[in-house]
């Protein structure tokens, strides 16, 4: 027999005090500052902003500190924080054509107008641990070219578009759907899918993207163009009625080129997948672009056979705050549920035993 009880208040308080102490670590070592996290663990901050779906470097740094570096916990904190703030409205779509480029590469064409700009990349490093970073040594300053980059780098995919070899992006059809205002519904339009993927878990999207490469819904991708840099944000306040620049953000963008689609009326063209994210998040936006493309299976008349082509599977499981909530809730008390299972199992076993007894008696 189970009797419902209350309790644990003191234990919870003490547990949180212990958490605070463990978070602080060795008190003889200076506490890590938000400036250090925002300035030096930049890619962790970018990930928390992306999956927390809120661009604010300071808040993301605070969340990372509070979460002791557990990025999913930090993302949860950011999602909770955003619910406390009023929505002023929708910004104009970002103009990534006007991006001030820090990195821009194409794996499809070697000679692209504007050139291949490697930027601050881990690519071509040897992945050997650099023990000089364990000390206090300062790195050399970055090299500078005599002249700045040209502004308004041309788009690689547009070069193919002008020849008719590339499908054109879909035109505007009205207000895009917004996951934060209406619950996810199926079938989901590409606007809703992209919003979901933009805030989706990087690991989940990476695994799905990888699965498409390994044959579970092939997309034959080439990284047409990847660019990283800053773009200005424009917004039209109701009281002004005209658009003003309210700041700038760093974004990473990936345009994948995928294999052909044609029809009776349209000659075969390359198809495309798109990825966009806050900060420097190349792995994320490449994965996003691959999954965006594979989720277009229905639209492009492809058979849906793989997980990455199943929008209900992908979109329902991409959110790591939802996922961690449902998985981790299992550790909270389920005493009554379990008691019910226990009673059921005992009853089943008792039934089998008494049936066995009757069988023996009959023999």
């Amino acid at each position, binding site marked *: 027999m189970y009797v419902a009880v209350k309790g644990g208040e003191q234990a919870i308080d003490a547990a949180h005090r212990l958490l605070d102490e463990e978070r602080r670590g060795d008190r003889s070592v200076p506490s890590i500052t938000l400036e250090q996290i925002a300035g030096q663990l930049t890619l962790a901050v970018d990930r928390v902003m992306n999956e927390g779906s809120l661009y604010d470097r300071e808040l993301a740094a605070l969340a990372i500190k509070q979460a002791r570096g557990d990025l999913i916990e930090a993302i949860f904190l950011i999602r909770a924080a955003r619910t406390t703030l009023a929505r002023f409205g929708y910004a104009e779509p970002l103009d990534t054509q006007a991006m001030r480029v820090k990195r821009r590469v194409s794996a499809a064409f070697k000679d692209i107008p504007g050139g291949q700009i490697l930027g601050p990349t881990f690519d071509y490093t040897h992945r050997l641990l650099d023990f000089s970073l364990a000390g206090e040594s300062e790195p050399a300053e970055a*090299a500078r070219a005599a002249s700045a980059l040209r502004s308004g780098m041309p788009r690689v995919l547009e070069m193919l578009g002008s020849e008719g070899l590339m499908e054109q992006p879909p035109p505007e059809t009205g207000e895009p759907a917004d996951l934060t205002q209406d619950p996810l519904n199926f079938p989901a339009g590409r606007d809703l899918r992209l919003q979901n993927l933009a805030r989706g878990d990087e690991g989940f999207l990476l695994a799905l993207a990888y699965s498409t490469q390994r044959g579970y819904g092939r997309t034959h991708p080439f990284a047409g163009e990847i660019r990283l840099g800053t773009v200005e944000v424009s917004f039209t306040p109701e009281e002004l009625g005209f658009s003003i620049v309210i700041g700038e953000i760093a974004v990473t963008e990936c345009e994948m080129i995928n294999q052909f689609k044609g029809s009776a009326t349209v000659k075969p063209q390359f198809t495309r997948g798109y990825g966009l994210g806050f900060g420097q998040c190349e792995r994320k936006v490449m994965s996003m672009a691959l999954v965006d493309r594979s989720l277009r299976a229905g639209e492009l008349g492809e058979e849906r056979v793989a997980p990455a082509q199943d929008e209900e599977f992908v979109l329902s499981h991409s959110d790591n705050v939802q996922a961690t909530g449902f998985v981790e809730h299992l550790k909270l008390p389920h005493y009554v549920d379990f008691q019910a299972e226990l009673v059921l199992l005992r009853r089943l076993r008792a039934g089998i035993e008494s049936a066995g007894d009757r069988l023996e008696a009959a023999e």
Partner: protein
Amino acid sequence: MRVLALSAPDDLAACAKDYASTAHDLLRAPETGLVMLRGRMGATGAAFNLGEATVTRCAVRLVDGTQGHAYVMGRSAAHAKLAAICDALLQRDADGLSGTVIAPLAAKLDARQAEASSKAAATRVDFFTMVRGDD
């Protein structure tokens, strides 16, 4: 507004310190909220919602009735308020403030962007053709 919004709050405070004490009423006290940012499918196609950003807004009225409005990304109330005051002053006397506040801030912004751009430009790949050894 662009330069006021893009400048770091500290830079604005330094350049506009003479104007910070301009007499004004708050039509809207500094308030932090969210703006949903948007991208476009394939960079140029239909829009989609990308994720939100924190934005702080403020509106002021100067003694002569001129209104100033500011929306700036981030959570700095001081940034939004000073930008709103500058916005009002710019409407009253665009030339005065342009020289003392906007031009120096714009120069700083340009210098910062040029530096970042020249560092990126240094990472541009120069391809060269390998000479084949078999002919």
